């Protein structure tokens, strides 16, 4: 037990909260349940990843909750642990470091593979090299009939005055030379011998090649004061996007700073400046429009990737969260303090999410929510000029093979370090291992392997840690059932008559839900077991066509039906 300062009551001293999150089981990907730790908005957990590994992950709480309680239909049990602010900070730091370290380790083979792939592509002389550069997709491709953007035209005037046309041409020539002189370093990344080592960071060939092209393209865009593509920015309607005089002043100051920064980047060009310079040019254009129109204009930073379909009922909380972030960012804009790039990025991010959520809210139908992939606008596009390094095709092929071999070797090392094990290394054991001696500061000690089952770990946390409060966040189906009258409730007992559940590839066939009526669970279990059996038999016949998919699904259905015979439920149905 830690000694408390004499002047503090226990309540004051343990004023911070860490949540232990336990997610109950469901069929398929998490038959044993799942566990995580929440620090404020950040959730740290350990996920099963391809190749049979267990890997640290960090996620914002809201998407985490949405995935597990809505899409996966699992109830989230929260044990809120009272800790001192110092303990909170120390343990948060411990989980963040672990996440960063693992991320760096897993990034090494990925980077080597990317190097290998790009060299293999460049070695092919029968086709033109292809390259997507982050940020280039925000701008209109070169055409003669496009009007110049005034913000970029102004920057070009200043750049010409400072460096002269010849100076800018010389810089572009030096970038072309640098691309030509690029060559891959031998794959010498030291492999970590244990999970506690961080590999040193490397500026890899593929990244240099990408960044040099981004830089060259930035000069070319500046040369023609290229405008943004019409779909690369938003000028949303509505009073909430109108700018007040003090906000306009803050944005004016920020736009000037951004222009100075872009001008300075042209002074001594470095490859790493390329992606940032492209984003800065695009933001300058958006800011220029905002100041001209007197309303918020911002770049589209959303990810085009198709996301899971969400029910319309999810739209209001998504909108509320985005709106709260937007209001916070606007308050900072109007606070009278100088706006920095982080503040502007947060405003841009929140405005994008709010706009997307508003569309979902207005649609009143299931929706796909696009999420910004980061705080930097990075829509990829093909640069005007793609150059090859001055290496022979044979040299590039040889280097590519060596890099792929190194990536394989590194991958094997990671497998040894992070191989998943049902009892010794899973989502629960890794939480308690990471807590390590820090567990004492939570009020007790839990042996990682003795608490390997998520449900058991949650019970242990309740018993041994300083839990101040416990509550559940109900699954989507549970929440829905609470709103029903008896007739509608009966209809929800079977997927065949359910108003909200649709059969999907994640779930095996079953005829009855067994997550709520415990008394009839064995009876329903018998029917579900028989259904699984029939699916298995059908799967045997279908095997030549579906490669055993139906057979495996039926077998899984039978397995998750077995516990139902003994009043125990795993399957709850998912909403993918």
């Amino acid at each position: 037990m830690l000694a408390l300062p004499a002047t503090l009551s226990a309540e004051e001293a343990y004023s911070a909260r860490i949540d232990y999150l336990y997610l109950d089981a469901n069929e398929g990907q998490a038959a044993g349940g799942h566990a995580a730790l929440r620090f404020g908005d950040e959730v740290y957990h350990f996920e099963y990843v391809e190749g049979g590994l267990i890997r640290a992950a960090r996620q914002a709480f809201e998407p985490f909750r949405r995935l597990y309680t809505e899409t996966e239909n699992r109830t989230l049990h929260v044990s809120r642990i009272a800790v001192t602010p110092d303990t909170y900070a120390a343990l948060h730091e411990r989980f963040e470091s672990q996440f960063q370290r693992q991320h760096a380790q897993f990034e090494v083979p990925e980077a080597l593979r990317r190097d290998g792939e790009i060299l293999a592509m460049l070695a092919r002389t029968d086709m033109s090299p292809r390259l997507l550069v982050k940020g280039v997709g925000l701008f209109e491709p070169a055409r003669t009939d496009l009007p110049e953007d005034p913000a970029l035209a102004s920057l070009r005037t200043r750049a010409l005055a400072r460096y002269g046309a010849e100076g800018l041409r010389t810089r572009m020539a030096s970038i072309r030379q640098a691309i030509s002189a690029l060559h891959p370093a031998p794959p010498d990344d030291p492999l970590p011998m244990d999970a506690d080592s961080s590999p040193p960071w490397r500026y890899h060939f593929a990244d240099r090649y990408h960044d040099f092209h981004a830089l060259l393209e930035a000069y070319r865009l500046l040369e023609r004061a290229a405008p943004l593509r019409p779909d690369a920015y938003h000028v949303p309607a509505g009073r909430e996007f109108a700018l007040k005089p003090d906000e306009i002043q803050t944005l004016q100051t920020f736009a000037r700073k951004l222009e100075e920064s872009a001008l300075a980047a042209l002074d001594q060009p470095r490859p790493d400046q390329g992606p940032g310079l492209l984003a800065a040019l695009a933001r300058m254009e958006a800011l220029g429009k905002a100041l001209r129109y007197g309303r918020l204009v911002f770049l589209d930073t959303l990810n085009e990737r198709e996301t899971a379909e969400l029910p319309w009922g999810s739209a209001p909380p998504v909108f509320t969260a985005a709106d709260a972030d937007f209001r916070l960012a606007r308050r900072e804009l109007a606070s009278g303090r100088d706006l920095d790039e982080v503040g502007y990025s947060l405003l841009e991010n929140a405005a994008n999410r709010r706009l997307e959520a508003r569309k979902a809210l207005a649609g009143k139908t299931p929706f796909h929510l696009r999420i910004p992939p980061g705080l930097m606008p990075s829509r990829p596009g093909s640069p005007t000029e793609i150059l090859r390094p001055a290496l022979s095709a044979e040299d590039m092929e040889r280097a590519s093979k060596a890099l792929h071999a190194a990536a394989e070797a590194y991958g094997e090392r990671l497998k040894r370090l992070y191989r998943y094990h049902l009892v010794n290394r899973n989502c629960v054991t890794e939480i308690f291992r990471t807590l390590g001696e820090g567990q004492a500061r939570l009020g007790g000690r839990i042996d990682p392997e003795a608490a390997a089952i998520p449900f058991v770990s949650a019970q242990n946390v309740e018993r041994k840690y300083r839990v101040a409060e416990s509550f559940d966040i109900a699954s989507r189906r549970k929440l829905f059932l609470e709103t029903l009258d008896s007739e509608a409730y009966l209809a929800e007992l079977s997927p065949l008559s359910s108003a909200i559940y649709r059969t999907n590839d994640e779930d095996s066939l079953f005829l009855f839900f067994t997550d709520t009526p415990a008394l009839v669970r064995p009876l329903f279990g018998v029917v579900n077991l028989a259904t699984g059996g029939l699916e298995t038999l059908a799967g045997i016949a279908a095997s030549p066509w579906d490669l055993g998919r139906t057979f495996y699904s039926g077998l899984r259905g039978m397995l998750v039906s077995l516990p139902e015979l003994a009043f125990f439920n795993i399957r709850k149905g998912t909403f993918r």
Partner: protein
Amino acid sequence: MTPFKQLIFVAPIASLTLQGCSFSYSSESSVKSSASPFTSSASVSESSSSSSKSSQNKKARYEKSVAEYATEFAKSGSSDSVAFYARISQLAQEYGITGWDSDKGTYVAIGKGLAGAKLGQPQYEALRKLLANSEPTRMQYIDEGYR
């Protein structure tokens, strides 16, 4: 249900259905690498609700990352300033910063990081000059963080 009974039911089913922990859906597709061709995805999940924190908190976290990397770089004995700048650019991009060269806070954080490496005075002077590209104002900011 007791933990023992839980184990009886859960263990065989979990082992037969591959695993008992949640699968990372982000690893299911290659979209991650195609959407952001050459950059790490460390910030992806965070960014989805990133503005729930104030910009000062975010900036502090960025500067902490810069300081940590500066410490690591100084301890490594490397003099590859191109790689150093590239790493700082990568960190800056995760926080939406397009031009860290013009940001005083970044240089102050580099100074803090160099202090963390506990270098001798001659090594510090040499590294400060290298990382500030001999630019007096930047060197002054690094000194500010180093003190």
